[in-house]
């Protein structure tokens, strides 16, 4: 009689504690500026859930999650609105992501793509760094000359 009880106690000690809190829900709170042309670009934002303060003053009743949101101000020229939208979409990477998910890519293709993206990022970072650090550029050029 006591043995099964002791066994169950032993097993409950082994099992993971039940007081683990669920992982915090990743919600990006947009940083709204005080100017009227507030730019809210929050990836995978779910209004109506954690954001109880109703940061978006929209009158849309149904909840929708969006990738990019642009608040249009009064009398904004058409080109400026389009440019702003395009820039935000590029920053969010929507079109790239769509193109990637259009067809299945196997592990080989995925690895190739990741390497290409990393190389591009590193090259961009290196070129920006060299603008600010001319000595770095000088050393790089010197090493290239030495190799030749």
């Amino acid at each position, binding site marked *: 009689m006591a043995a099964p009880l002791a066994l169950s106690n032993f097993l409950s000690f082994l099992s993971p504690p039940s007081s683990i809190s669920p992982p915090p829900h990743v919600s990006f709170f947009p940083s709204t500026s005080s100017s009227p042309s507030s730019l809210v670009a929050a990836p995978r934002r779910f209004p109506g859930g954690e954001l109880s303060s109703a940061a978006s003053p929209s009158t849309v009743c149904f909840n929708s999650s969006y990738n*990019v949101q642009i608040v249009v101000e009064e009398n904004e020229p*058409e080109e400026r609105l389009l440019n702003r939208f395009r820039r935000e979409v590029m920053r969010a990477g929507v079109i790239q992501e769509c193109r990637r998910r259009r067809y299945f890519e196997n592990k080989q293709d995925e690895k190739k793509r990741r390497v290409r993206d990393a190389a591009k990022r590193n090259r961009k970072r290196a070129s920006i760094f060299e603008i600010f650090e001319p000595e770095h550029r000088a050393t790089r050029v010197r090493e290239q000359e030495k190799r030749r």
Partner: protein
Amino acid sequence: MGSRRNGRISSRKNARKVPKGVIHIQASFNNTIVTITDVRGRVISWSSAGTCGFRGTRRGTPFAAQTAAGNAIRTVVDQGMQRAEVMIKGPGLGRDAALRAIRRSGILLSFVRDVTPMPHNGCRPPKKRRV
């Protein structure tokens, strides 16, 4: 008799004035569909590049998206819509062109949102094309 009554009521409801609405633009690679709904999501009118007379590869062009958006908005502006939100879905050349046409038509825009559905690594997409 009851269904006849319902038919009559719904045709009367279509003439209602909707001052604020939502414009959904679905821009795929081959076509652009523009749907105008009210804030609750009930469709008021729609138009697409295909219904505007373009067929085949011309449906996916930005000009076709522009005409589709223009068509859709014309029917709705007569009904008295002044403000609208824009929800853009999908990659495609029609995104910017339709937005431009909406802006030019004189409707006040409150938001422009991108609601392209992004899976969190869900269904497996179709296999690669070997063309």
